[in-house]
């Protein structure tokens, strides 16, 4: 009885103490320590070869890919040295970068082929809220010569913050503001949530009249923005950020929210071709509401150039939704390089050391070596869907076509072949819808003929280029063929109904940008199995509306996957849906 009472008393005492201070605080502290222990091995201390400068990075895959800031690798040049928390120094090479977003992807070389690296998991920065806890890790002041990262802990002070660029680059859009201490050398390092997931990459702070050290206000690039660029980074691209091609102004009335209006718009922009014009009021972009300049800049800055996103606008009482292809930010600079506008810094060094063999310079790419790798991987996977080698004879297929504008449903036959004329060959594409045939030589016709059938924007040549890809792969596009990273594609509903919510139709696709003859083609491959799910064909001009073909309903024909549905769009209009009944694919 006595024992019972005393143990009871101590229990109550313990409980009340616990409330005031210890077990809970101790638990959260030990949890925190455990998380730090878990993620510490993924933190990379980055040094320029030869020692001048550096920063931090974080491993995100077991094969050695690590994220950091562009402003960390810009001075190191394409090769760098990377220390991990266990004290081992690795060679690193630049893979891809996003200068405007201040992000770079590097790859650490394993000591032995097949060696695995520790890595951190990427979280969902969209779930981060003001007032959440965060942990930053890195190498402030480059003081850890044994590469052990410094840990700092603090609050998320704000989310969806906008910090304007320094010149053209290093624009922080939709970023995470923290009071977690970050200092020079922390740049490129990870910001973790309390689960140890990477929610951002630390990169800059507000200083004003203070020295360039922690002022209680630091910013991390949100990991969700970086995810949008990940395909581009892996493909070794010099990725560009998006712009709409329009200037906006936010009108504010006392009551209610700001109205974001277009003040001017570039006529060569896709937004203009889609119908957007001056004085239109933008109220949502990619599913997010736009009520201020900062909102607008935040949401546009999340995306890479050339991505298509849904945009809602109001003109008078009309509310419209369009799918807009975004323009670039660096465009002007590419057209007319201006040395004054280049970011300041030491001259970029050439590749050095053992990692140099993984670097290949090429304009428009951060490291062309990785683009070739990605392209080869994509084409190998694509070929698994069907190997058409030696099948260069006449291809024909037939079925029914629904023409949306004409509201007709008719039988069709199509034929793609290379006609022998003496010793040379002449390609020829024929499409007969009902009783009306169209025929074109895709290598030798004027633009009006190439747009056939009328209203399709060029379905005939598209069929030719499609077959060309199946037959020849990337090798068939000698003038230009590179992996274009990752882009969303919006698959039309298979029942030809009107799209109610474009975001719901989105599929992430790997992109191949290819040129043959006058055709500039963008092929879209499903990220999951590398099936060809779409293509955009442009004639000569990059700034024109393409013929869009969406492939679906794949079925096996003679051991090869072929699409049995092709939906054709041109200038926002659904031209028609071809439902294929049968294929005949002849050999040479």
């Amino acid at each position, binding site marked *: *009885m006595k024992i*019972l009472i005393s143990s*009871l008393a101590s*229990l*109550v005492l*313990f*409980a*009340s103490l*616990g*409330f*005031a201070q210890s*077990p*809970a*605080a101790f*638990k*959260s502290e030990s*949890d925190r320590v455990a998380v730090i222990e878990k993620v510490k091995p993924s933190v990379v201390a980055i040094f320029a070869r030869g020692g001048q400068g550096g920063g931090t990075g974080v491993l995100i895959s077991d094969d050695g890919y690590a994220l950091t800031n562009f402003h960390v690798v810009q001075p190191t040049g394409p090769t760098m040295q990377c220390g991990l928390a266990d004290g081992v120094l690795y060679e690193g090479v630049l893979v891809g970068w996003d200068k405007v977003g201040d992000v770079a992807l590097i790859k650490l070389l394993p000591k032995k082929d097949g060696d695995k690296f520790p890595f951190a998991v990427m979280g969902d920065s969209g779930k981060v*809220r*003001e*007032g*959440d*806890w965060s942990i930053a890790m890195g190498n402030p002041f480059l003081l850890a010569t044994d590469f052990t990262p410094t840990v700092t802990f*603090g*609050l*998320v*002070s*704000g989310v*969806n*913050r906008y*910090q304007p660029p320094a010149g053209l680059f290093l624009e922080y859009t939709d970023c995470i*503001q923290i*009071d977690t201490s970050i200092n020079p050398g922390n740049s490129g390092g990870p910001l973790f949530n*309390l689960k140890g997931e990477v929610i951002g990459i630390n990169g800059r702070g*507000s200083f*004003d*009249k*203070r020295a360039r050290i*922690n*002022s*209680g*206000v630091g910013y991390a690039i949100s990991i969700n923005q970086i995810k949008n660029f990940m395909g581009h980074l892996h493909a070794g691209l010099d990725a560009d950020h998006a712009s709409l091609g329009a200037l906006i102004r936010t009108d*504010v009335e*006392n*009551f*209610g*929210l*700001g109205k974001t209006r277009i003040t001017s718009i570039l006529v060569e922009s896709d937004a203009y071709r889609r119908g957007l014009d001056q004085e239109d009021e933008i109220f949502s972009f990619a599913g997010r509401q736009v*009520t*201020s*300049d*900062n909102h607008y800049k935040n949401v546009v800055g999340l995306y890479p150039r050339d991505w298509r996103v849904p945009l809602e606008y109001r003109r008078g009482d009309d509310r419209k939704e369009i799918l807009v292809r975004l323009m670039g930010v660096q465009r002007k600079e590419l057209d007319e390089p201006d040395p004054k506008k280049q970011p300041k810094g030491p001259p970029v060094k050439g590749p050095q050391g053992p990692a140099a063999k993984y670097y290949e310079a090429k304009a428009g790419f951060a490291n062309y070596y990785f683009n070739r790798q990605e392209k080869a991987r994509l084409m190998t996977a694509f070929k698994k869907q069907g190997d058409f080698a030696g099948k260069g004879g006449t291809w024909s297929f037939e079925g029914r076509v629904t023409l949306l504008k004409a509201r007709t449903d008719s039988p069709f036959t199509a034929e793609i072949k290379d006609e022998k004329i003496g010793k040379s060959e002449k390609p020829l594409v024929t499409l007969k819808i009902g009783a009306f045939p169209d025929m074109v030589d895709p290598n030798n016709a004027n633009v009006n003929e190439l747009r056939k059938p009328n209203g399709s924007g060029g379905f005939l040549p598209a069929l030719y280029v499609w077959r060309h890809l199946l037959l020849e792969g990337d090798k068939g596009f000698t003038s230009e063929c590179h992996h274009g990273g990752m882009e969303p594609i919006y698959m039309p509903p298979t029942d030809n109904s009107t799209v109610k919510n474009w975001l719901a139709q989105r599929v992430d696709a790997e992109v191949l940008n290819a040129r043959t003859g006058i055709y500039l083609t963008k092929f879209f491959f499903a990220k999951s199995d590398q099936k060809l799910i779409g293509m955009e064909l442009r004639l000569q001009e990059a700034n024109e509306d393409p013929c869009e073909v969406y492939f679906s309903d794949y079925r096996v024909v003679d051991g090869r996957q072929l699409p049995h549905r092709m939906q054709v769009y041109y200038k926002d209009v659904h031209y028609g849906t071809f439902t294929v009944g049968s294929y005949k694919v002849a050999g040479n």
Partner: protein
Amino acid sequence: MNYKITYRLLGIAMMLLAVGELRAQNSVTAASEQVNRKMVKLFGIGGFKGLPSYGTGLLVSAKGHILTVNNHILNTPGIVVHLYDGRRYQAKVLIREPELDVALLKIDEDVDFLPHFVFDKAAEKAMAETGDWVLAFSNQFKIAQGDEPMSVQRGAILTVADLKGRRGIFDAPYSGDVYFLDNIVCNPGAAGGAITTRKGELLGIIGRELKDNRIDTWINYAVPIQFKIEVQREDKKTGKSIMEKESVITFVHKALLGNYQETVKIRREDKGGYHGIILVVNAVSSTPPYVEEIVSGSPAAIAGLRPDDLILYVEGFSVPTIKIWRETLKQYEPGREISVQLQRGNKLENVKLKLANPPKTVN
């Protein structure tokens, strides 16, 4: 029976533990959202001499009364106010309180039902203590505009102590007890922001940017809302100057009722003691403090200072120019013995200088 009680108590104990755990693990998002609704972003003149053109304020009434710092932004004819939900208004200054370094503004339109901090008797609770954990809210660096929320930071109270402005080192606009904070909250535009408990209860008003020139360090402080300081005002009946005590709470409380009697800034005289050192002519802005002459019989003469000595340090603080020397000396009162390090020829010398009352001047 006993077992039943044991189990019941065990249950309560577990519950208490669970609550404790929740408290320790929780983010401060809820408090942050709640506080943010009661705060406003202010925009006005500035942008020169390192003075920001933006600031932070607290709503203290449903009708749009705003408490903020008594600084240059208030000289703007129409101060622009952004509410938490993006609504924008203009505001006018109703009354300033120079000793507390705060002012009360009012939104220039009829508004009502605004979420706000309550300044009544209930706010008069005990001040926070050293080691207490606090949150800071402000629109520092003008990061937020429209409906974007304030920045929230966390910190701890390092100490509660008298903020003594020292000429030449830093000029504090407020003289009294403040919360000194461990996090960097006194950034541009932060003054007038809120320091709260982690539940979002108001503790203090974020102070201005202050830099201690001796150690080149920025000071982070907040004025406790209930701390009473002396103010000077005119007695309504006699017309004489009288001293009374007011706090931020009493200021807001009375000012909202329209019966806060204005005060005047108290003149604080320099208290620097007499030393008897005559320096070379202060010809350029960076003239070093070379001794020209020593008044015979003065404290400096007693301490053994001589003409041509170059004064380097006073109480360990560098005095590179005559201006800094003068301002530094103003803070040492008569009777105080200060250590002075100087260069004499090629040697460094340390002397103790006991300051005296200024000699009576004969008219």
